[in-house]
């Protein structure tokens, strides 16, 4: 697990969802959920400094995206609620635990924390906090690949929330990828809240998918709680972008099933919403759907749960055993150029 072994082959999904792919998506959803529950517990036990932000309820959307992306070939900029997408894409759970727990061995070496992690050299960008900023960045990776003549068959992807759609960065980024017609998929996970702010204080259109046309993007709507729908729609959108169909915008409707972070009880989310159409848990839905299709048995499910629990447990244990960064051995420089090291 310490090596980067989990990767997903380049899937060129046809309209028909395969059993194999659906199971991959669901496994990533489960793995992410299990890992995030661990992280949440660690936070509540005071073992994680800063904050923990989980993607409960958004796993179907996120995993459906990540499962279509190929490590070391595609580029993915996950945001706040994309543990499932990271997992499906191929992020090692140790990257998460090490970053949250501040192990010096994590990809961020204690310099950055929680969600602000990635492996940019392998296609997983490390988000900054400023919402919307990743859209243009992913576009830049793709533009670079185009200039180098290496774009063929590649795709870029990112997820944002409803709140992030209000940022200028998001707008400029979307417009840029549309003008350049880059093979990119942008998912808006419209979970009805930005922190405490409900949609009616965030935007005034009926549905954010109404924005697709205005950018000249192909648009897709999806029920973010319906795993099979997510896997199909998102899978097709990725396949379309990959095969030259131009940039794709997907709006997934769902509900954030946690607080904004684990410090937040989310008590401002009305009960009607929790009990409403999008209040259901996509992981429950996904399990049900696979079982109904005969693509999963209860026994398998239990085995997976055991496996993922053990994996998460181990990832936490490893990270907890590791030292944090040693401030006395830090280089304390933000400069990369060898000729300028030590100058200020």
């Amino acid at each position, binding site marked *: 697990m310490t090596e980067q072994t989990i990767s997903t082959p380049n899937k060129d999904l046809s309209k028909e969802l395969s059993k194999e792919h659906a199971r991959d998506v669901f496994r990533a959803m489960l793995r992410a959920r299990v890992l995030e529950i661990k992280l949440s517990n660690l936070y509540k036990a005071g073992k994680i400094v800063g904050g923990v932000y989980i993607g409960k309820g958004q796993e179907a959307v996120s995993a459906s995206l990540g499962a279509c992306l190929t490590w070391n070939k595609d580029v993915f900029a996950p945001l706040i609620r994309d543990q499932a997408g990271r997992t499906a894409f191929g992020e090692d759970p140790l990257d998460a635990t090490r970053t949250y727990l501040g192990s010096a061995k994590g990809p961020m070496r*204690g310099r950055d924390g929680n969600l602000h992690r990635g492996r940019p050299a392998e296609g997983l960008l490390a988000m900054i906090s400023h919402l919307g900023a990743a859209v243009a960045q992913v576009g830049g990776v793709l533009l670079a690949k185009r200039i180098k003549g290496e774009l063929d068959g590649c795709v870029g992807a990112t997820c944002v929330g409803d709140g992030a759609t209000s940022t200028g960065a998001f707008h400029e980024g979307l417009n840029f990828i549309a003008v350049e017609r880059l093979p990119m998929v942008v998912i808006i996970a419209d979970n009805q809240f*930005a922190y405490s702010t409900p949609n009616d204080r965030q935007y005034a259109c009926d549905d954010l998918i109404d924005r697709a046309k205005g950018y000249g993007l192909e648009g897709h709507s999806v029920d973010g709680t319906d795993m099979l729908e997510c896997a199909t729609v998102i899978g097709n959108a990725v396949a379309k972008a990959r095969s030259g169909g131009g940039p794709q915008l997907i709006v997934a409707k769902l509900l954030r099933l946690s607080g904004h972070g684990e410090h937040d009880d989310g008590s401002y989310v009305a009960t009607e919403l929790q009990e409403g159409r999008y209040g259901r848990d996509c992981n429950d839905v996904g399990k049900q759907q696979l079982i109904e299709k005969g693509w999963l048995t209860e026994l398998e499910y239990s085995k997976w749960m055991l496996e993922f629990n053990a994996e998460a447990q181990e990832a936490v244990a490893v990270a907890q055993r590791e030292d944090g960064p040693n401030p006395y051995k830090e280089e304390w420089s933000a400069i990369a150029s060898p000729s300028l090291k030590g100058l200020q």
Partner: protein
Amino acid sequence: MAVTYIDAIRDAQERALAENPKVFLYGQDIGKFGGAFKATKGLQEQWPDRVIDAPISEDAMIGMAVGAAIEGMRPIIEMQFADFSSVAFNQIVNQAATHYYRTGIPVPIVVRLPSGGTPGSGPFHSQSMESIYAHYPGTVVVTPATVADAHSMLLQAVDLDDPVIYCEHKFLYRWLKSDNFEGDNLPIGKARITRSGKHATVVTYSAMVHEAVRAAEILYKEGGWEIEVVDLRSVKPLDIDTVVASVARTGRILALGEAFPWGGVTSEVVSRVCAEGFHLLDAPPMRLNAKDTPVPYHPKLWAMHRPTPESICEALRNLLAY
């Protein structure tokens, strides 16, 4: 009953709303939720039309505020974190700060920036941006270090006719307590001698005032050194008279800040002291800032990135030994 620094910010906003119908609050999650740090808790209930939730649009938030101010209002804008004001940078420095000079119509807005580092907050929830905004003509930049200053300076800021960047330090929010909000009500633009001394002066502001006082205590115990601590309170305008008067007593100055080391408040302080009190200096004026990297996430790195009582003492020992 003790009140905290964040209580002071909340109470000052409550009073401003109560006393001045021109005041309104605008920011993300500041309404029913009461703000990420609860600085506006309960205020929307009292003034539903004057405590307004904003979309995640920092640029538009300031653009809006400028328009409202032109129309005679006195908006207080909450940035969720100072770091996100980077997205509003253009509206702050080019729209708000230039307007009075260009048109003669003032733009009295207050922009609250939850600033500074706390353990585990990382590169994008820890920044100190006072130097960025102070560089531009037309801004006022305040950096309260005490509960009473947090209170009175916010009220004063609302009354000023210029855009005021109100840098509130997150580390002080709940940690800093006082019996009440009362203080000496010094006006914005005046520094304060927080601790008097005769061997050296530390000029600082915001959370570093408390670290400087700690360092002063250590050095006093260590060798009877009496370190004077000057709290700038506002970094623009910067009360160089009080600073120079202190240097006249001590002959030695350390300019201390939590921001990045290139440029910034500490270099401005040193330069002004040189310009106005060079002959008073018995030793080279010194600076101590954070290290020249983004603010790191890990508490151990964070603790070494910013000045600490220990590193301040070390700097002061060098200064005293000169």
